[in-house]
């Protein structure tokens, strides 16, 4: 016992070389930094390759023939791509608008009122699109549309998108509301604002960053969706991801890289903006 207590501290100091003692930092592990570097390379190299070859002047998506914007010119003049892009934009805009309004109303209730009956079940239903596997949602929605006989063309896709956009819009809005001091609303009412004015002048302006960031995420999720759109879309409602999927199956040319790169840039800009707005106090 005595031996141990005396020996342990001394062995600690004897065993550590002076160099390692100098650099010994609590909680650091060798190799973790390198793993992180490899992780980021793994994450980003494919994206860089994709973008670089969109500027290839030759026919190959993987053999470099020199810099050229010819595939960009071709892609931008492709009527089908334009039509798909317009479809994607219309679907995303409408689905996002509806989903964001519904999510804002729901989060005002769920984040602001005391516990009530049906709170947990409402919350579970709101989160369902995140839990059910996408492929299941896709075929279930298809079954539903065929059962009801709903043939609204692009409208069917908009309905399906609205459903899964709701939780994505909901989460940032609720997070913002939870971070907001609820006494602010009480203060407004104490200072003679009625409920509507308290919402209009205090809650809404403070909630705005959350709403914008929720809407942007919903928009991106809608623009990027593939499986559900693949299953529920009918002729004439092809979106960009569906078009890209079709191109991949027909054979690979740098034109796919061009469309993909443009979509990537759009996503990155959107997410960066959403992130910056969401962080703003």
């Amino acid at each position, binding site marked *: 016992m005595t031996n141990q207590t005396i020996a342990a501290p001394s062995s600690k100091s004897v065993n550590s070389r002076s160099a390692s003692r100098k650099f010994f930092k609590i909680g650091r592990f060798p190799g973790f930094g390198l793993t992180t570097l490899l992780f980021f390379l793994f994450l980003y190299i494919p994206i860089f390759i994709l973008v670089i070859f969109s500027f290839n002047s030759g026919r190959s998506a993987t053999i470099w023939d020199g810099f050229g914007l010819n595939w960009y010119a071709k892609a931008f003049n492709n009527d089908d791509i334009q039509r798909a892009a317009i479809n994607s934009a219309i679907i995303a805009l409408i689905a996002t608008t509806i989903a964001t309004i519904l999510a804002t109303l729901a989060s005002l209730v769920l984040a602001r009122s005391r516990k009530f009956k049906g709170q947990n079940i409402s919350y579970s239903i709101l989160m369902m699109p995140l839990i059910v596997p996408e492929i299941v949602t896709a075929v279930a929605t298809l079954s539903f549309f065929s059962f009801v006989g709903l043939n609204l063309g692009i409208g069917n896709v908009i309905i399906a998108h609205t459903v899964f956009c709701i939780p994505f819009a909901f989460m940032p809005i609720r997070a913002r509301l939870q971070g907001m001091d609820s006494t602010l609303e*009480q203060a*407004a*009412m104490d*200072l*003679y604002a009625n409920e509507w004015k*308290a919402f209009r*002048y205090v809650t809404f302006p403070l909630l705005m960053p959350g709403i914008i960031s929720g809407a942007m995420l919903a928009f991106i999720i809608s623009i990027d969706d593939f499986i559900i759109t693949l299953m529920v879309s009918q002729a004439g409602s092809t979106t960009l991801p569906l078009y890209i999927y079709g191109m991949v199956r027909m054979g690979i040319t740098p034109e796919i890289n061009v469309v993909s790169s443009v979509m990537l840039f759009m996503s990155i800009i959107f997410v960066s903006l959403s992130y910056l707005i969401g962080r703003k106090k």
Partner: protein
Amino acid sequence: MPETAIEVRNITKKFGVHTEHEVTALDDVSISIKDNEFFTLLGPSGCGKTTLLRLIAGFEYSTRGQILLYGENLIGLPPQKRPINTVFQHYALFPHMTVAENVAFPMKMLGKDDGETKKAVNEKLELVKMQDFANRKPGQLSGGQQQRIALARALAPHPKVLLLDEPLSALDLKLRQEMRTELKNLQRETGITFIFVTHDQVEALTMSDRIAVMSVGKIQQRGCPTEIYEKPNNRFVADFIGETNLLEATVSKVEGNDIFCKLSDNIILKGEGETGKNVGDPVTLAVRPEKIALSPISEQTEGSFTGKINNSIYLGTDTTYIISVNGKSELASVEQNSAVGKVRFKIGDEVCINVADNAIRILED
């Protein structure tokens, strides 16, 4: 006789009614607060003082009872319809508005015109000495400055009653001391009734005209600061406010208002209290340490008794002695160190104990 500003009548507030977690926050509480009074609700956290304040403000609905403002029933009125404003514990300043916009907010909500709003904003910012900060955002201000803005904002519409929910608790000690005086002055200058909630006895004693001490949803005692301090009714009040010696004794003789209590065979003390105690009843006595004077054993006088110093704690301006009497009861005595010719006692010294006249309180329970 001044008019009654707020009359709380038999208010009961329960949370979680019809659930297994039912809690009674306020149990049949009645208070009347006079016009132009600085009234303090004092008590430990969870005693119901903040709930009472929120009921007066209109943020909560009472389970039973009435609240009257100058004779008018407030029950059922939402907060925006009550001419009562609150200074919140963490100020609740709107972060997206400037200081001036914050102060102007209630005026705008009341539909006042621009001229009047501007005048009120300038006046109130001047009142709290913050006119140079009108265009700042609350985030750019220190805690003390935010506190002043919260005051200015709540005072701008000239409410009939101002509620203050532990407004000094977020400030550091020095600032807190300054703000105490300032709040008191502000109340005198504006002539508005203040209802102040705190758990800090010093705040309550220094600022208030009257205090209500609360515990477990009930009012334990109400009165002016000296009454509360010098004449506590019960064990809770005696213990919660200041330091106190609590002694167990039995009543040996009753002579009008004077009740003689036997502490032990040779010590009989004269106490005061509005209790209907009879000879032989057990009672609890409360004596403040500063009312107990010590002198060397050689200077024994009539009515005093002896004890032995068990411990002495030096506190700068004064010294606290812990004395054992008859080898069992312990008493604390505070002696000022500045007194001329004061003898300092050592641990183990035998001393003579003198209790000041009228210093012994017989408690209700």
